[in-house]
């Protein structure tokens, strides 16, 4: 059982840091709900999803590796699980301010500047990082090194280059070492596998509420994946397609998870002395 291992280790090793995570969670519960008015038909980015990502992180790490983490790493990973999607819930004022600091590359050559929903969704990891930096004091993050680590790990839940040693390097803090590349790999994979219908309210994955074909397909795919199991050597999707065409969509999603798994395994093994033991993504169709 890997339930609450990170949380318990932090509580036992540093009760002050543990209390800071609990206080932040209370406030974040309200904050993460603020994405709902802007994205009423989008998949879950509330505290429920944050808790799922934390639980999957526990599972992916496993007891032996969690014992080797520093208190600082437990704190950073827990906080990053809570905060990684906070960029989805920013208000208009922060959207305008933080957008000035994001390198959008050539994104606006093919996308409208008016479509703020899509911009936020596409770059929400960057908005999350900037938001955490701006409001580090609000979350009582105890030192600058930890702010940096939480920013990097939260940003790293998607898109960023975890092999980039200038961005993802080990950080020393008064609370121990933080191996940012490995932690970001864990959160990226944990976020990717939170696709099971058992973990999310029907309201948030109700395909009848989705708009457009891609939205309907995404919601239907989530509804078809009944649960995800983290086994020692594999990630298993237990599925019951709601319609035959979803078999192909589930297959595509499984391929995408496999890509992320391969990438994160490589990051873990080459950037740290930790590992991700799971090697493959399997699909098992079930009768319920």
């Amino acid at each position, binding site marked *: 059982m890997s339930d609450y291992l990170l949380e318990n280790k932090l509580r036992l090793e540093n009760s*002050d840091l543990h*209390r*800071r995570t609990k*206080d*932040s969670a*209370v*406030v*974040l519960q*309200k*904050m993460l*709900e*603020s994405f709902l008015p802007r994205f009423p038909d989008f998949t879950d980015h509330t505290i429920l999803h944050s808790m799922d990502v934390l639980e999957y992180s526990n599972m992916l790490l496993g007891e032996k590796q969690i014992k080797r983490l520093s208190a600082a790493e437990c704190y950073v990973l827990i906080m990053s699980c809570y905060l990684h999607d906070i960029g989805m819930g920013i*208000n208009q004022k*922060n959207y305008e301010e933080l957008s000035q600091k994001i390198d959008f590359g050539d994104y606006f050559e093919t996308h409208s500047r008016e479509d703020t929903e899509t911009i936020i969704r596409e770059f929400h990891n960057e908005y999350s990082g900037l938001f955490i930096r701006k*409001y580090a*004091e*609000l*979350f*009582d993050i105890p030192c600058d090194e930890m702010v940096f680590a939480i920013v990097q790990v939260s940003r790293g839940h998607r898109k960023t280059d975890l092999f980039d040693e200038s961005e993802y390097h080990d950080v020393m803090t008064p609370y121990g070492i933080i191996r940012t590349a490995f932690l970001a790999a864990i959160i990226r994979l944990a976020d990717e596998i939170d696709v099971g219908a058992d973990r999310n309210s029907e309201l948030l994955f109700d395909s009848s509420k989705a708009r457009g074909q891609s939205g309907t397909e995404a919601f239907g795919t989530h509804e078809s994946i009944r649960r995800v199991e983290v086994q020692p050597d594999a990630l298993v999707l237990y599925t019951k397609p709601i319609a035959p065409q979803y078999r192909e969509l589930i297959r595509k999603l499984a391929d995408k998870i496999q890509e992320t798994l391969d990438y994160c395994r490589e990051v873990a093994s080459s950037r740290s002395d930790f590992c991700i033991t799971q090697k493959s993504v399997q699909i098992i169709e079930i009768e319920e």
Partner: protein
Amino acid sequence: MNIKKTQNAATMIIALEGRLDTTTAPKLEAELKDALDGVTELIFDFEKLDYISSAGLRVLLSAQKVMMKQGEMKVIHANDTIMEIFEVTGFSDILTIE
């Protein structure tokens, strides 16, 4: 952080000075424990409060939970920084702020 607590009949005013954060929030929590019996109006005066973090917000939330059963609670004189925190966290929708 300094806490100044005054009570007039069933109205309690708590004036805070300094920062309400992870270091100081336990002190306020301890002050509030058992102090709200019989109070029907609780006022937090933030005129001299510089900053509030999530630890402080949690204490406010706990106090409001108690006061919702027995009366009302409000926050007065919050500065611009704290008002921004209330807005960005969504606490401006939960708290009565004047």
